């Protein structure tokens, strides 16, 4: 298993002020890393750093020499614009091939074939001509995962992928992600969903207020003090389902 990313005591910040510090973790090929943390703990800053859009203020961040910007397929959170953008599923999946085009104005045969086979892999071939905004939330996420897989085949970074989905669609999406992980794709998932993280992830990175609380395997996390506290909190939250849906929407 090759090493994908090694971070040693990095400090991440925004416009000169540190947001989160003391992050040390490893990502190896084939991992399923779940990044847990409250809102405002610096998760989105960390996403930017992982994507190479934001350099750490200090510390070491080591990537393999052959890894460049764009090698991580990204599934961003949905924006308001997308909800009324007229676009067919095929157009969106194909746009994942855009980085391969460089300055070439149109897609070539190989890229169209990649888009087609990726849609087939995710079981959305039948939706190819449908309009994105008319799909269900779960179908939309599949489309965006297909697009991310067109851009990068080895690593997927998912930002709160199940937000706003109904419970059935959430399970379907988690199963799909787990299946992609089994086929060799490294998964990095930012999530609020403690229980899903325990069930699916191989590694956990837990960020507290501005610093790292835990990094290690899921089994170790459950034994750790942080893990025990948060699993108790998550179970308490599960007993009040209404509150939970509210925090899922934001």
């Amino acid at each position, binding site marked *: 298993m090759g090493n994908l990313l090694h971070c040693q005591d990095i400090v991440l910040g925004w416009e000169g002020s540190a947001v989160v510090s003391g992050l040390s973790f490893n990502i190896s090929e084939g991992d399923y890393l779940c990044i847990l943390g409250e809102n405002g703990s610096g998760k989105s800053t960390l996403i930017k750093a992982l*994507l*190479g*859009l934001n350099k750490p203020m200090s510390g070491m961040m080591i990537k393999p020499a052959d890894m*460049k*910007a*764009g090698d*991580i*397929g*990204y*599934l*961003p959170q949905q*924006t308001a*614009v*997308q909800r*009324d*953008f*007229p*676009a*067919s599923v095929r*157009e*969106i999946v*194909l*746009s*994942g091939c*855009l*980085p391969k*085009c460089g300055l070439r*104005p*149109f*897609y070539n045969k190989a890229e169209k074939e990649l888009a087609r086979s990726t849609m087939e892999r995710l079981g959305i071939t039948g939706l190819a*001509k*449908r*309009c994105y905004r*008319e799909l269900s939330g779960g179908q939309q996420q599949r489309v*965006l995962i297909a*697009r*991310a897989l067109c*851009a*990068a085949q080895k690593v997927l*970074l998912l930002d709160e992928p199940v937000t706003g989905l109904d419970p059935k669609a959430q399970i379907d999406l988690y199963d799909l992600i787990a299946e992609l992980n089994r086929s060799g794709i490294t998964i990095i998932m930012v999530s609020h969903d403690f229980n899903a993280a325990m069930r699916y992830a191989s590694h956990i990175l837990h960020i507290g207020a501005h610093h790292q609380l835990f990094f290690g395997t899921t089994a170790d996390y459950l034994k750790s003090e942080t893990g025990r506290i948060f699993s108790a909190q998550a179970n308490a939250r599960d007993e009040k389902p209404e509150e939970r849906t509210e925090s899922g929407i934001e």
Partner: protein
Amino acid sequence: MSNEFITKLQLYFSYPFVWYALIVGLLIALCSSLLGVTLVLKRFSYIGDGLSHVAFGAMAVAGLLGLTNNMYVVLPITVISAVLLLRTGQNAKINGDAAIAMISVGALAVGYMLMNLFPSSANITGDVCTTLFGSTSILTLKPEDVIICVIMSVIVIAVFLLFYHKIFAVKFDENFIKAAGVKAEAYNLLIAIITALIIVLAMNLVGSLLISALIIFPALSAMRVFRSFKRVIICSAVISVVCAGAGIFTSIMAGTPVGSTIVVTDIAVFFIFCIVSLFTRRKA
């Protein structure tokens, strides 16, 4: 009756200025509809209005300086403003809509003030009206204007076609595209520049106040009925060109103002598409 109609048309088309108006009108309609879709989607519907006020202010400055061809002042000022506006859209210090309002109101006030302080002709209200509504300026085009317009339209259309997939990807999801290692800022800048070019062009046709209509109506009509980006773009281009053609013919035959006739045609088409969408939605 129909003979009389044809004779009248033949008479009009023996004048070069009618041809100029038609060429310029159709090209501008085509260009503005191409970018209209992305502007509407990115909540920049008002940028046309905002930039046209900037162009109005710039025209007042050009008039003040006594320049014969005010394009040389208007074009650079509008392009710079467009770039500034579309960039503030991304950074949160001043919101996009507040920035548009600020620049457009400011430019309008300064322009009108300059026109009043240093009147270039006796009829200020008439001048303002002409600048804002475009009244008949499309029928007084000179051959140079037509050449400039053709060149700029060709540039805009070529850029749009060559960067079509990039424009789609950047406008649909800037975060994803940036993460994938594509220079989204560069494409945003390019789109800002050609948007400004289109608006300066469109000012000659319909005047400042009606530019927004030319940008948004074809896009909104097409988005009612079609479901893919490509079809929406093609449909809005067709609507825009057909409406501009019909509007110009009507205004020549009925003697109505060119700009508002085109926009009224666009509004009519919008309602037709709204009705059509009721039926197509039900089927789906």
